């Protein structure tokens, strides 16, 4: 009998969900949710009276409605709350028009700006969202309102998906790339092409030439950092500068970007001190969904909410 082939998918990052143990949702007045269906990951965030109640962070499948349902189901998994208990739900991200439980959709640019404002605090002036398939640079004011934005969704170079492809190619789990890219003797020259397809063949060439794996990771991280910097330079970076999205978790890119820009990124920690004290998990990927949920809260309060629920 043929031996079962063991395969490992190195790009496969772990899915997470969490429920706030300190909130009794039944006592909450307004329950809002935000579902961010991105190209790679889907996040559902539930907020009770503007406080984080729970979230689910999953991978996006091949169709947006199912991904949204999966994300929401995952967020609700550890609680007895039902979708019907949510007063207002807003969809955002690439698949925002296809979120079945959402009453309204808002662009991810607005949501990330608002979410970053909540997560990192009102001093945030520049938000860089490193998504699965695009990167967005946003300048915001102290209320999280967008002042200037620029989006690059023309190609996947310098995005999360590019990093996943790279992880699979060199057979290193995607979350190990950042730390390992620093275990090098000397910073190698960056990969010259940022295009995922070209970079992939360049990496194959480097592997064959005998370059150490860690050096290749460093070269790829600096190429990505350089590409992000090009986008940011046009917009102008102001402190406090934060990165949201999955790539923010990759120290290899963040540190190199800080070096190129000469600006530090803010610590990945909640602005609200009680959130830190209580040890709520901080996930940079949640920014969009948190923003959407906060917009839901604001719209309900202003009486501007659209009432019809699609499904």
């Amino acid at each position, binding site marked *: 009998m043929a031996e079962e082939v063991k395969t490992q998918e190195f790009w496969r990052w772990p899915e997470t969900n969490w429920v706030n143990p300190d909130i009794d949702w039944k006592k909450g007045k307004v329950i809002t949710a935000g579902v961010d269906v991105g190209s790679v990951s889907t996040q559902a965030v539930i907020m009770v009276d503007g406080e984080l109640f729970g979230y689910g962070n999953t991978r996006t499948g091949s169709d947006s409605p199912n991904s949204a349902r999966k994300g929401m189901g995952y967020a609700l998994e550890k609680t007895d709350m039902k979708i019907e208990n949510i007063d207002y739900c807003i969809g955002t991200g690439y698949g925002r028009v296809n979120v079945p439980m959402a009453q309204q959709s808002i662009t991810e640019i607005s949501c990330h700006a608002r979410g970053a404002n909540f997560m990192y605090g009102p001093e945030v002036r520049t938000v860089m969202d490193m998504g699965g398939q695009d990167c967005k640079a946003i300048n915001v004011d102290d209320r999280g309102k*967008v*002042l200037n*934005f620029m989006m690059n969704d023309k190609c996947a170079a310098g995005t999360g998906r590019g990093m996943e492809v790279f992880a699979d190619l060199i057979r290193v789990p995607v979350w190990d790339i950042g730390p390992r890219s620093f275990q090098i003797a000397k910073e190698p020259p960056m990969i010259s092409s940022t295009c995922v397809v070209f970079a992939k063949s360049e990496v194959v060439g480097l592997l064959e030439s005998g370059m150490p794996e860690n050096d290749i990771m460093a070269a790829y991280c600096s190429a990505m950092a350089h590409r992000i910097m090009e986008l940011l330079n*046009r917009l102008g970076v102001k402190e406090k500068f934060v990165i949201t999205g999955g790539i923010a978790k990759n120290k290899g890119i963040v540190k190199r970007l800080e070096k190129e820009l000469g600006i530090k990124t803010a610590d990945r920690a909640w602005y609200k001190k009680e959130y830190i004290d209580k040890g709520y998990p901080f996930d940079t990927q949640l920014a969009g969904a948190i923003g959407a949920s906060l917009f839901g809260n604001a719209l309900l309060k202003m009486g501007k909410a659209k009432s019809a629920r699609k499904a």
Partner: protein
Amino acid sequence: MIANYGFKDGSGDWYIVFDTDKCNGCGKCAEVCPKKVLEVGPDEFDIFREEPVAAVKPEERKKVRYACAPCKPGYGATPPPCVVACEPGAISHSEGWKILYGR
């Protein structure tokens, strides 16, 4: 808000830039655009804004480099019709075309 519609690639910056604080939503830019890439509607990036605002159509945003090229022989010699039509001066174009068509 400054809204940049378009993209950046290896060949340069290709953006149509709207200053939405100046835009009054009159729609003259959309009327004069020969390629019909502009439209006026609710502001999708600021949900609390009630007045309509001009924007590039979502399906055209990745193609502005090509759609806008015919309006720019000798970048700056004859300003593009949308820029001329805009009374508050809310529209501008990025440098990509200047490098390509400018003298």
